[in-house]
């Protein structure tokens, strides 16, 4: 199934919640509204025409202060139909809340925890949303553009990172 067909099915089912579609080769994506993401995810997983039974990857993107935008990207693949699609959800840089799809795809469990760990994106409804890689008492979210390293961690000094200017 092509991305266009997947998009058409989603639009006929959810209408306004499907915000944007791009069919640029190798980077086809559909942007959906975060409010309806959970039912959309369930539909993508269960519908007989789609059967997206595999969540290949889930990651976050920070576009920086200027754009004031963050993004969660879901890379979906159907084992039985051999088609794939990228779903994107956009939101603000602070207090970005996305419905958790951990109960739809079990793989999302650790992916969502990692994304929370690095970007501070809250996945609402996750059963165990705590940091995956960094220690629980770490301050800040390292992959955000304006991240600043904390000065001390349990009395150990963390040297400040001074980025070199590249011309």
């Amino acid at each position: 199934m092509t991305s266009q067909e997947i998009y058409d099915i989603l639009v006929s089912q959810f209408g306004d919640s499907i915000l944007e579609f791009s069919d640029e080769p190798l980077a086809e994506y559909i942007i959906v509204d975060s409010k309806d993401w959970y039912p959309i995810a369930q539909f993508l997983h269960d519908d007989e025409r789609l059967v997206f039974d595999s969540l290949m990857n889930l990651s976050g993107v920070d576009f920086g202060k200027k754009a004031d935008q963050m993004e969660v990207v879901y890379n979906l693949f159907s084992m039985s139909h051999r088609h794939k699609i990228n779903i994107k959800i956009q939101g603000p840089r602070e207090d970005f809340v996305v419905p958790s799809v951990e109960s739809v795809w079990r793989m999302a469990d650790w992916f969502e925890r990692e994304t929370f760990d690095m970007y501070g994106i809250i996945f609402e409804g996750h059963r165990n949303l705590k940091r995956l890689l960094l220690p629980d008492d770490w301050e800040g979210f390292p992959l955000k553009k304006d991240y600043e390293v904390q000065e001390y961690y349990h009395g150990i000094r963390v040297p400040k990172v001074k980025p070199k200017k590249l011309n």
Partner: protein
Amino acid sequence: MGFLEHKFNDNIIVGQVDKLIGWARSNSPWYFQFGLACCAIEMMSAAAARYDFDRFGAMPRSSPRQADVMIVAGTVTMKMGLRVRKLWEQMADPKYVISMGSCATAGGPYWQHGYHVLKGVDLVVPVDVYVPGCPPRPEALLEGLMKLQEKIKKQKTLVKIDE
């Protein structure tokens, strides 16, 4: 031993207790395997048949309570740094630390941008020998161990005041 020499029968040896203790300790530095990254592969190689750590009396131990030397081999993250400290505290005295590779010594390639990497294991535990390299070859680790042995031999256990 000056005037005491040749005063007794042949089967009596006169010497300093410190030297005896130093000799005994330096020839059985059982090490606590602390393989954290790729340096651990070189440490395993140094312990295996070709480079053979055993000929120095160095035996790998998996418990800090049985070990004399901790070989910190690899990148120490902040999270791990606290554990390194805790395990070092569990080792019985006398205890020594070898910092193997540039990561454990100074953060290595993570020196500038690794926000989560401890910039040198000497920030949490006292280090006796630093072995440079990324990762150091087994020969380098062997030399580090031999340097440590020299250090242990020179240590004075009973005499507290410098002569």
